[in-house]
């Protein structure tokens, strides 16, 4: 009897467990479809990123404009605090909407697992979604901030469009990390980069939670 049992365990080697895979291209395509399906909420999440980045870009640009027109010495320390707090608020918003996105997909996550998905494949789906949402939010936010700053320059008699355009081409050393690049480029990189990091950071906990769900539990949810 015990002999027979041992035999069964040993037989595992005859199974010759093969590959389990989820190519990035497939995951990306499914993420895009998921965003399209829940377009309204993805747009709101994206808008939250957008507002944060627009605030960052416009604030730093206005500081650059004022420096060029000799009004102030550039970015004040309190501004960094303001930026930090605004991005934090924005991050909490994204986390919340991602938690909802995970909750309404419990059953779907369970289904993926029955088809052979590993935890990291589920994680991948949600993180890719976060990257897309972050990128879109960052892009729109950058241009929104740029336009807002230009309107500010145009309506401020001591700056004007001319000086503002000059400032866009000049480096602003007070911009963190990429201060040596022309302001317009530096803020583009910083804005999109921060948007993606922010969106990813806010999604990690919900996505990790989704990935760890036990398939039997996940399938029990009725929505």
């Amino acid at each position: 009897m015990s002999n027979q049992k041992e035999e069964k365990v040993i037989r595992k080697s005859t199974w010759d467990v093969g590959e389990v895979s989820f190519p990035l291209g497939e995951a990306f395509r499914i993420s895009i479809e998921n965003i399209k399906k829940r377009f309204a909420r993805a747009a709101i999440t994206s808008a939250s990123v957008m507002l944060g980045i627009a605030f960052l870009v416009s604030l730093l640009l206005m500081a650059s404009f004022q420096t060029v027109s000799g009004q102030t010495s550039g970015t004040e320390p309190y501004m960094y605090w303001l930026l930090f707090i605004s991005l934090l608020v924005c991050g909490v918003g994204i986390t919340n909407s991602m938690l909802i996105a995970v909750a309404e997909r419990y059953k779907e996550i369970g289904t993926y697992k029955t088809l052979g998905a590993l935890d990291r494949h589920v994680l991948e789906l949600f993180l890719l979604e976060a990257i897309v949402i972050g990128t879109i939010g960052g892009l729109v936010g950058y241009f929104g901030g740029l336009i807002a700053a230009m309107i500010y320059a145009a309506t401020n008699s001591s700056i004007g469009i001319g000086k503002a355009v000059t400032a866009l081409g000049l480096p602003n050393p007070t911009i963190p990390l990429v201060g040596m690049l022309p302001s317009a480029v530096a803020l583009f990189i910083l804005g999109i980069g921060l948007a993606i990091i922010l969106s990813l950071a806010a999604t990690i906990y919900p996505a990790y939670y989704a990935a760890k769900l036990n398939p039997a539990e996940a399938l029990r949810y009725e929505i």
Partner: protein
Amino acid sequence: MKSNWGDYMSLRYEYTVETEDLAKYYKLGSFVVKALDGINLKIRRGEYVSIMGPSGSGKTTLFNMIGGLDRPTRGKVYIDEVDISKLDAYELAWLRARKIGYIFQTFNLIPVLTALENVMLPMIFAGVRREERIRKARELLTLVGLGDRLHHKPAELSGGQQQRVAIARALANDPAIVLADEPTANLDLHTGLEIINLLRKMNKERGVTIVTATHDLKMIDVSDRIIYLRDGRVERIETRAEVAVEAEME
């Protein structure tokens, strides 16, 4: 070479599923629900088995254990003679992708994917080449009578059609066993019967072992064996011959 390895290996195993003193308890506060309590089953390769039992008798829990979706409190499950409690996360994922096909009461198709893409999904996880995936998915959807609905999304299909897609998806990687949990419960009488006949046809023609949980009496006619479950225990087991005899005596 046709890499149909699942079939090839299964030929050597007499029993696709075996359980030994299988039990699953849930703790609800100080109260223990014995969802399964000492189940011993042997299911032969190619059998069509129905698990009958009232709601709450433990059918879904039994499926979760056999399907490698949850861990038992006690006892063992062998699939093709491998003790699945010994498998790690990667091996379990492979088991779910390759060895087992799942069919649910609520169909559980991925809503953003078309019928064809839904059937291709398990083949993606199993690492099947793209051209082969498309070929196989088309073939299976045609087989279940949906050759003209390949590019429809689940929301554009009726319940019966969605369940056909789910059957095609369950068969995608030529599993050793298909587990169907109340596959007809959300369908009308006529559509339910069609689905039952389709499952039976797949069982006959493709030799796939099928285990369905149900309280649908239509299922009795097509089953080789009926296992009656009550309060997490096997109440009795009827084979087809006995069922036929009983019917004659009435």
